[in-house]
């Protein structure tokens, strides 16, 4: 078994128009910038994107939105140091927003990956974000029913991988990446290093390869914060 793919372009080449795509990362940490830029080059449109944020500056997710490829965004916090791209698209009615509390977003993704269609959480009970959702009482407390989130593709970033797709992460760049890997039909991981089978200690595997379909090496990945300080624009 060898899940490695030669290039980021090849890794995203079959993503069709209208796909639902989870994109890992929290702000810039753990954001698979090279895969996102490959998706921009590939040009798939009318995407639904699931990410914690809505991009920053004019690279990565912000650039994907700026190219008009995203019809709908599901996220918890569509603000950033430089949120101009999403803000303008949203206020112009060019992009739909589904705002989800951050922990609910994470759990919906985890549930999608675990085959659990719905669950109850105290989060958002009695607020505007619970309007229209079923409510139930358990042990005297009220909970809101939330549904799983699944995707056609997940674009994630990891540190090391082997040919089976076993993954490790780097510090807080882990964030949404492991749960998105579980929740997509096709998970594509960009990794800093592809290592021989057996060189990742099984005790250290964070995402087992069963959740990963494609691995592509990006040896020195770009970091959103650094690109933004340089006022980079993609493409």
């Amino acid at each position, binding site marked *: 078994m060898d899940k490695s793919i030669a290039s980021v372009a090849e890794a995203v080449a079959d993503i069709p128009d209208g796909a639902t795509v989870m994109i890992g990362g929290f702000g810039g940490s753990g954001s698979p910038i090279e895969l996102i830029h490959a998706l921009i080059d590939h040009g798939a449109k009318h995407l639904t994107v699931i990410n*914690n944020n809505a991009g920053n500056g004019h690279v990565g997710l912000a650039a994907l939105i700026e190219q008009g490829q995203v019809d709908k965004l599901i996220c918890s916090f569509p603000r950033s*140091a430089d949120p101009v791209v999403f803000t303008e698209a949203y206020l112009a009615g060019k992009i739909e927003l589904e*705002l989800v509390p951050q922990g609910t*977003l*994470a759990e919906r993704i985890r549930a999608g990956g675990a085959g659990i269609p719905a669950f109850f*959480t105290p989060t*958002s009970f009695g*607020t505007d974000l619970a309007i229209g959702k079923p409510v139930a009482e358990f042990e005297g407390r009220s909970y809101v029913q939330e549904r799983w989130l699944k995707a056609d593709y997940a674009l994630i970033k990891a540190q090391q991988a082997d040919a089976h797709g076993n993954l490790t992460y780097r510090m807080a760049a882990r964030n949404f990446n492991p749960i998105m890997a579980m929740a997509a039909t096709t998970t594509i991981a960009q990794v800093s290093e592809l290592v021989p089978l057996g060189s990742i200690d099984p005790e250290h595997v964070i995402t087992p390869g069963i959740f990963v379909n494609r691995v592509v090496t990006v040896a020195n990945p770009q*970091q959103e914060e*650094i690109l933004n300080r340089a006022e980079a624009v993609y493409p």
Partner: protein
Amino acid sequence: MTDIEAIKLSNAQIAWRAAQDIEDGAYVNLGIGFPEMVAKYQPQGRQAIFHTENGVLDFGESPAKGREDWDLINAGKKAITLRPGASFFHHADSFAMVRGGHLDVAILGAYQVAQNGDLANWSTGKGGVPAVGGAMDLVHGAKRVAVLTDHCTKKGEPKLLAECSLPLTGVGCVTRVYTSLAVVDIEGGNFVLREKIPNISFDELQAVTGAVLTTDGPVADLIVPEL
């Protein structure tokens, strides 16, 4: 009439007061912005373990400028450092810590707090781009949910109210409010005054509070150092 603006506590002093209530070894989440200041004012000999939603327990101060690693950030997307004993985890585990009741204290900012513990801190209801982040999760699950806030808005309107008029973050979730004038607990649907700064009278404090302040014993002086 007392000039409240002249005698009220600074944000640093409110944060200092909140820090005095955090036990050694407590697991604590500090909201983005003003609540982050609490970490600076832990009493000598006490060390809380700070949680950040994006997957780190036991982080420390910001690194020196130029030493940032952008894979190591907090929920406010600021660079952080690690303390010995730190750990990393993914987002679903991070919010299991929150929702599962494993945090001892969550400290948040507020637009408004109601006497029953309702909190409004995520939306001014005015349109624009809505953003909620982790606030609605953090108010459920921590054993204590404390709010740091100026006692009144910049226009002088009360922020402690009978009912919130802004969109809610959570229902009946706040347990204690540290303001620029007082420390107020929320018990049985009432604001219970615990401490007030010495040079304001009870009546003056009540006049800038939007719901009845009750007492169930002596009210202590709220005394904080110059910071």
